[in-house]
């Protein structure tokens, strides 16, 4: 069953500065600053290809990365999307 489809803002709307392996994001639409850790920046990049549901998002990430362990990866993606949605960095398409 296909879950909700998520989208994110274009790159021009989000300034990112790398500090110590963390990303500091200035999100222009909200005027807010977020400090995010992996895999949040990678998820945002993957969603910039176009809106996707959690399954499609995971497939895009798999194409780019190996995962440390495959256990509960799907749950982790859901949890990350929920956080990013609450912060306003991704939205339901």
């Amino acid at each position, binding site marked *: 069953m296909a879950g909700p489809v998520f989208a994110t803002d274009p790159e021009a709307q989000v300034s990112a500065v790398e500090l110590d392996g963390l990303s500091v994001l200035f999100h*222009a*639409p*909200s*005027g*807010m600053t977020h400090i995010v850790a992996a895999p949040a920046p990678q998820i945002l990049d993957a969603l910039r290809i176009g809106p996707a549901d959690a399954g499609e998002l995971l497939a895009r990430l798999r194409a780019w990365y190996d995962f440390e362990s495959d256990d509960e990866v799907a749950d982790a993606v859901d949890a990350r999307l929920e956080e990013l949605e*609450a912060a*306003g960095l991704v*939205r*339901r398409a």
Partner: protein
Amino acid sequence: MRNARLLVRALGDPASVRACDWAGLISAARAEQLIGSLAFRMEGQAVPPRVAAIFEAARRDSAQARTQALWEAEMAHRALAPLGLPIILMKGTAFHAAGLDASVGRSVGDLDIMVPHDSLDAVEAALIGAGWEHVKDAQGYDDEYYRRWMHELPPLIHRTRDRMIDVHHTILPLTARPRPDAQAMIAASVELENGLRILCPADIVVHAAAHLFADGNLAGGLRNLWDIDRLLREFAAQPGFWASLGECARLHQIGPHVGRALRLSHRLYGTPVDKAVAGRARLTDLLFEMRLLARNGWGQEKAKALRFAFYVRSHWLRMPPLMLARHLWVKARS
């Protein structure tokens, strides 16, 4: 000259302000939450360098305030979109979302929206699901009072963004004498590009007048009246606006308040207004003017007795006498 008068003159006719009590003007503008509006009005005028820097910072600050207000609306939209309801932005957020002249430099506190009365429960549940929470313990007299008599839900605040939302279902408390037709307002509302809605121009003015003269104690009234000036000047360019304003004012039983708003806006800000809608000047207009200008150049409130009289009036307008007595009794005991 009282500095509130100086502030009013500067807003209405920025070129007329030369050498003046700048510190007093700035303090009065900050106290009345008009510093952003003043800063934009005075843009391009020759002012001393420090004043220019203060105005420049105020203009930047209101750009940020605008971003925040629109973002709050966007987040509420995201939370409520699945319900498929008309969501009507009100007051400052509506001005910003529609890019009205009244939004220039306008500060925004809470997010105000209006939804159909029968959808209140669903809206409240959806907002709570998206991170808003009740401000006070949702128990006891305050909550009961709100749900029974007010024109809005008890205020909600967002858990992480610390911003409040007021969800209205009409524009005045149900205890007030005028009974506006909320359904007609929703039906006449206008959709914006992003799917959110605002009231139609005449209803925006009706709501602003009701809010200023039928609901509150006139605190912050200079700012609300400045909104009305900007709205009237912009909408007057639309054919048939004055006639439709008169009609809407009658329909929503706000006629006298709309008339008062037009007359005072004209008196203070020189707004060109339609004589028929404005009605004849009343002696009490002068009292309202005095109350609106009760602020000195140190930002202090003046005319305490007059302020108190308008405070009592605000309760009188909202409640029938017996109910007012019960309300004050419960408040006094708590």
